[in-house]
């Protein structure tokens, strides 16, 4: 579909995200050093450089529907090498939060993993790798993923069946509840 730039409604959102991330979008001169060093770029549908440019244009919809914002590993290689110090991981992260609010999710499994992880924290106060992987495998339909490692892990006592839990679980839960009620930090 034809894209009419000056009718784009994402500009305000993009500007807000950029401000929160302390990024001046106009500084990006599209050199591509970010994309060149990004370990995940091979799987991105939009290069990190293109995310910055789309935000500068105000096309947040394309950004929020992209896979790249979900696949970003927050490794910070891009910003470490960026000539203009543009905090791309922050742009990715904040775009991802906005995408979630609007129900966009181009890489379902990443969201699923994070959701389950968050719930194990709510449940036990600590992460539970076995439970996490188990529920994730069911939820993602990848029942056999990493299953070959399980007997070995048990045999070598790498994981144990018992749970590690926080005593004051209510404290952790109340912290999470308060943060969720307050929404994402704006």
């Amino acid at each position, binding site marked *: 579909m034809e894209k009419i730039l000056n009718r784009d409604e994402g500009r305000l959102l993009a500007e807000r995200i950029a401000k929160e991330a302390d990024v001046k979008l106009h500084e990006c*001169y599209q*050199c591509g050093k*970010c994309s*060149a060093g990004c370990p995940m770029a091979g799987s991105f549908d939009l290069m990190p450089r293109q995310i910055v440019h789309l935000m500068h244009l105000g096309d947040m919809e394309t950004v929020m529907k992209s896979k790249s914002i979900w696949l970003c590993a927050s490794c910070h290689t891009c910003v470490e090498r960026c*000539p203009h110090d543009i905090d791309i991981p922050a742009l990715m992260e904040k775009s991802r939060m906005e995408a979630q609010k609007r129900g966009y999710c181009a890489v379902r499994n990443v969201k699923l993993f994070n959701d389950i992880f968050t719930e194990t924290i709510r449940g036990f106060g600590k992460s539970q790798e076995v439970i996490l992987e188990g529920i994730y495998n069911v939820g993602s339909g990848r029942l056999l993923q990493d299953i070959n490692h399980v007997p070995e892990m048990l045999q070598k006592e790498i994981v144990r069946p018992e749970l590690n839990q926080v005593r004051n679980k209510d404290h952790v839960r109340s912290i999470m509840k308060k943060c969720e009620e307050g929404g994402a930090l704006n």
Partner: protein
Amino acid sequence: MARIGVFICHCGTNIASVVDVAKVAEAAKQMSGVAYATDYKYMCSEPGQAMIKAAIEEHHLDRIVIGSCSPRMHELTFRKMLKSTSVNPYMLEIANLREQCAWVHTDREKATQKAINLVQMSVAKVAGNKPLHTSMIPITKRALVIGGGIAGIQAALDIADCGFEVTIVEKEPSIGGHMVMLDKTFPTMDCSACISTPKMVDASAHPNITLKTYCEVESVSGYIGNFEVTIKEKTKYVNHDLCTGCGLCQTKCPTKVTSEFNQGMSKRPAIYIPFAQAVPSKPVIDPNACLKLTKDKCGICEKICPIGAINYKDEVKYTTEQFGAIVVATGYELADWKTMYPEYGSGRYPDVITGLQFERLVNASGPTEGHIIRPSDGKEPKDVVIVKCVGSRDPKKGKTYCSRACCMYSAKHAHQILDKIPNSRVYIFYMDVRTPGKGYEEFYDNTRKDGAQYIRGRVSKIYQEGEKLIVKGEDSLIGRPVTVEADLVILATAMEAAPNVEEVVKKLGISMDKDRWVQEAHPKLGPVETQTSGIFLCGTCQGPKDIPDTVAQASAAAAKVAGILCHDEMETSPMISFVDQTKCSGCGFCVTTCPYKAISLVEVPGRDGNRKVTKTVAQVNEGLCQGCGCCNAACRTGCIDLKGFTNDQILKEVDALCL
């Protein structure tokens, strides 16, 4: 009662778009002493000046205030104009309504009020102005050129050809600078040595030129027309008056260290002539490498020198000379990419080289006699990557500017590789290709025709795996990360100002910009002048540039110097200090404060009650005083004043603003 005329300039829309100029002129009419006020589109123009002259006649004006651009810009213009009127040229004040008001504000109402305040201050000050008259001082008809690269050589030749004596001070053992290191020059591909070495020879043979190589400027005093410069000659340990340049010492010296001229890609002896075509073609001894000087061993060069020119006990020599004008041509160094770019390996990989190293590799007189090989294993590279903008256009690395010559020399390098190595491939990572020069775009076209692959993107990382260098970039035109497995990587490393530029600038009393480039007086209208009159600049000390631009600027600086030296004497500014000797206590504080050594203490007859006594007081040398005002501020009894800026006038300005 003073009759002041106030003239408010629109400066096109520069002032008028932010300041209500008509309102300022109206307000001026109400100010004390103002007999006439008006506004006009361009006061500096011919009709504007005619208008002022007519107003002087018609309204019998005796002093003028002009509200316009900075006095740096047009104060001289208006003073010249006043020479043909009844008003003394120093009965003039400029209120800076452009740089200090319109350009820095957006609120029209507040800016207009500020403009009125500025005019009010100038009106208050001009009321206290007194007519001043210039005097004449003689000019020393000799020029000093600091730096013996192509800029310095060209400037010196042009000044010398006008019939004036020139001294070139060069810190290295030979003149020639960077140009003589280069192989071919874009876009015409003439051999750099073939066009620069004849100029070096011309400079050394010119009857009006004195070469002072291996020398540095130690100190500078004085002013335009009469600079006094002390030159330090570093220890050469070779008597150049005796030395014939036979070169025997070089061949027998047992110590070998890295050659600066070959950019670290070959060795040179401790006693060395930096390159075969050096001027002068006489050696110096590197005191950090020489066994005799470091460990008191060896001494071979002294034993074999047929004429006994070696002198291990050589000492630093200082000479002091007078010059009428100075040209700064201190040139550039390459940015130290090794400390700036850990992502490119910090210099761990021998096959990642700079453009200047490549120039030595491809140069027939270089360490490989022109064979392009990998420094690591001597093999001929097939796949070569050129990375542009290394150290330039990179705010993270502290350099925002474009280094200007890299796009073209990179295209030239690509052309040379494709030409010399059959079946080679060249990939050039770039952000933009900038070719603003005559024949440059065509050269770039031809490089692509030769087969160079231009990939738009900045390289993120360079590292070695096995024999190959892995270069990771993005092809931003297709939006995909790309990797090139290269045999050789050439970094188009940025120019930066020479390492000792701070010292030179400090000694000369001129300034640098944020990137350490020497600051020109005006980027458009004073591109070869500095803020200190009589001191000029040319070449890459002022900013990155290529050879054609450097040579053009050098000739321009030479013309400016000749424009001074062709006069026998020159006008001095009358805005200088004067001492009220009846009040002076002779403390001498002003003497130590004066940067121009213009004040001395003298004995004059005076009275103590009824008794006649001799008292010591300060006296200003009108030829040396530059009107800086330091003594004025330092004087404890308040007996020193600056003509045109008296304490009384300044206080009147303050009163006009505050009362």
